[in-house]
């Protein structure tokens, strides 16, 4: 009984075990280092609105773009067994389109912002379709297929911007990028919640989840059961396109400008990492969206923790790498197996000892 209980504890969270342990460790570490690290305060921003502040808000807010992308990436990974490395570049394009449309109108109002966002979505979905076609129709490995857009995406953004880094400012944009007056929670966080709910609804009201996993685990069987694998793969890239547009627009709204070279730079690596830390196999198949979202927060929490320890922003990567390696080593199948064997041997020995004791 006791052994079963232990097993249930270890496997109860399933694939979420590792990211949850990681978060717990980071929380404990930060609390020891600085007991006030997670205190949440209320401060007033420039407009005089009361807003929540504190490290934890910073973490959750800062990971928004990453979390949105990780959701889409999880779907692509599950369906195609590979990753899209062009999300950063595509987000730069989407952001550029967003700004271009905003600037083309005379005034920025809610209508133009929505129009601009829709345009950005359409463009990002088109690029998603391009990637998806290469992967689903031409059967090219996702990483290779998206290498094309990775190589030239930021240049396309540069071309859209006409070589400059145009700025836009409007209360609406700052409302998207930071706080809506009267709401103390950062808007990007709300957007993540909205996206998560959208995904939840998507999986609830369609059979996409089942189909995606079937295609990812066993494409041949999925096809013989009548699933259109090409369509599912393509769809996953198009959905990722929407995520790309959303995160691109958040990024632009935060800064109030579009810099094609630095907007969401290197985020593709973090995104893939978030998916992997979330316990999803990068080889495709079964997935858990919540894992990837938690993975995104793990990465951001790690970054903020390092910042709080006065590690220069340029050096953060090195420490991040060490933690990543530790996490994946703990999660590796070989270590798990060894650990399991070790535990069972220990249990065996204890049983033998107790049996001996009983005999005597």
């Amino acid at each position, binding site marked *: 009984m006791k052994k079963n209980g232990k097993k249930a504890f270890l496997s109860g969270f399933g694939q979420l075990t590792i990211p949850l342990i990681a978060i717990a460790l980071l929380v404990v570490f930060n609390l020891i280092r600085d007991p006030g690290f997670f205190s949440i305060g209320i401060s007033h921003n420039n407009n005089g609105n009361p807003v929540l502040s504190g490290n934890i808000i910073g973490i959750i807010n800062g990971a928004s773009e990453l979390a949105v992308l990780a959701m889409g990436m999880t779907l692509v990974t599950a369906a195609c067994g590979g990753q899209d490395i062009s999300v950063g570049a595509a987000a730069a394009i989407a952001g550029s389109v967003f700004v271009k449309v905003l600037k083309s109108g005379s005034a920025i109002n809610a209508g133009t912002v929505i129009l601009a966002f829709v345009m950005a979505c359409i463009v990002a979905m088109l690029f998603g379709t391009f990637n998806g076609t290469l992967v689903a129709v031409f059967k090219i490995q996702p*990483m290779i297929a998206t290498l*094309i857009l990775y190589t030239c995406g930021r*240049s396309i953004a540069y071309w859209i911007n006409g070589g400059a880094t145009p700025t836009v400012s409007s209360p609406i944009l700052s409302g998207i990028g930071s706080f809506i007056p009267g709401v103390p929670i950062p808007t990007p966080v709300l957007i993540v919640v909205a996206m998560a709910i959208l995904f939840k609804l998507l999986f609830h009201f369609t059979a996409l989840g089942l189909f995606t996993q079937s295609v990812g685990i066993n494409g041949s069987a999925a096809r013989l059961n009548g699933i259109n694998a090409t369509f599912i793969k393509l769809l996953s890239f198009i959905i990722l396109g929407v995520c790309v547009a959303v995160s691109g627009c958040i990024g632009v709204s935060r800064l109030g400008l579009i810099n094609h070279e630095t907007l969401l730079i290197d985020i593709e690596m973090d995104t893939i*990492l978030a998916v992997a830390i979330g316990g999803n196999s990068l080889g495709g198949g079964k997935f858990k969206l919540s894992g990837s979202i938690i993975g995104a927060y793990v990465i951001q929490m790690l970054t903020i923790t390092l910042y709080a320890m006065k590690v*220069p922003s340029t050096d953060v990567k090195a*420490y991040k790498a060490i933690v990543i*390696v530790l996490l994946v080593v703990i999660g590796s199948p070989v270590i798990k197996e060894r650990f399991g064997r070790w535990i069972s041997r220990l249990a065996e020995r204890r049983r033998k000892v107790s049996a001996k004791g009983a005999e005597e």
Partner: protein
Amino acid sequence: MKKLAFLKRKEPLNDTQLLMTITIVIFFVMYLSAVLLLGGGFLHPQQIFDMLNDNASLIIVSCGLTIVMIGGGIDISVGAVTSLVVMSCVLYLNKGGNIFVSLLLALGIGLAFGLVHGFLVSYLEIQPFIVTLAGLFFARGMTTILSVNPQKVQHTAFNNLRAKKIEISWLGYRAKNGTLVPARIELGVVAALFCVILVWILLKYIRLGRNFYAIGGNQQSALMLGINVKRTRFMSYVLSGLLSGLAGYVFMMHTGAGNATNAAGMEMNAIASSIIGGTLLTGGVGNVIGTFFGTLSLTTIKKIVVSSGLNDPWWQSITTGGMLCFFILLQSVVLGRRQKKAKT
């Protein structure tokens, strides 16, 4: 026996050779059309040598990556390792270090990365993308920890070595004032060509090299055939790491300075070179000669763009992306048709 040799020649091209041939043909077609359309600079042998001078380290890195990809893996840390090697060696030399020891340092750093990657990927069975991504982060982070500011080498002996170039006068050209400017080749290019040849020999004639193809082609079969799959995969990452170390040294010889953004994006350029050269990410197919020409093709297209007067840097990456797209689609179509043929 002559009959046998004749028979051999009749063997149809296999996937590796076919993809490589396509690349080489396209490279020459591209270069020839550049000569015809743009003339001028492309006729000078120095143009080719410059391409080699600028890309010696990329060639070396691509060789390593080709090995890993043939074995069915991926190593995206190569550019970052190169960068870290450059920075460490520059700092070491500026502290008055020895040239020979600095070379050992370069190789040592590369080797260390290779060993760790290999161990994590093949013995702990962690996804190679994640492992080498961590390697990328670590190397980039370490580079900035060493120095955020650009560092120039101030080591006389090294700078003398750096200035040494192989000069071939008969391939030179006369400058406008009439003096003969000989063709110049940097020492790094020699190292790069040496690497290409060594890796070619490794992949063709050495047991380990053939085992890379075997594990990339079908891992399960390779195990059944009695190949130590884990050790072979481990070795592919070790070699890739070692070559990244060497590439870092060559990079330093070329630029003479260390910078945190050195070799940025080199991993993707290396992957692109390998792919254009006919290496498949799925493993088991590839050739280092193809990779060499892949690098040259990539450079040529950039040169052509610049010579055409499209000076904006974004034209380069857009054409590179276009070319990559072309090659990827071409390979997909060629291999797809081939498989269909094999079936019937």
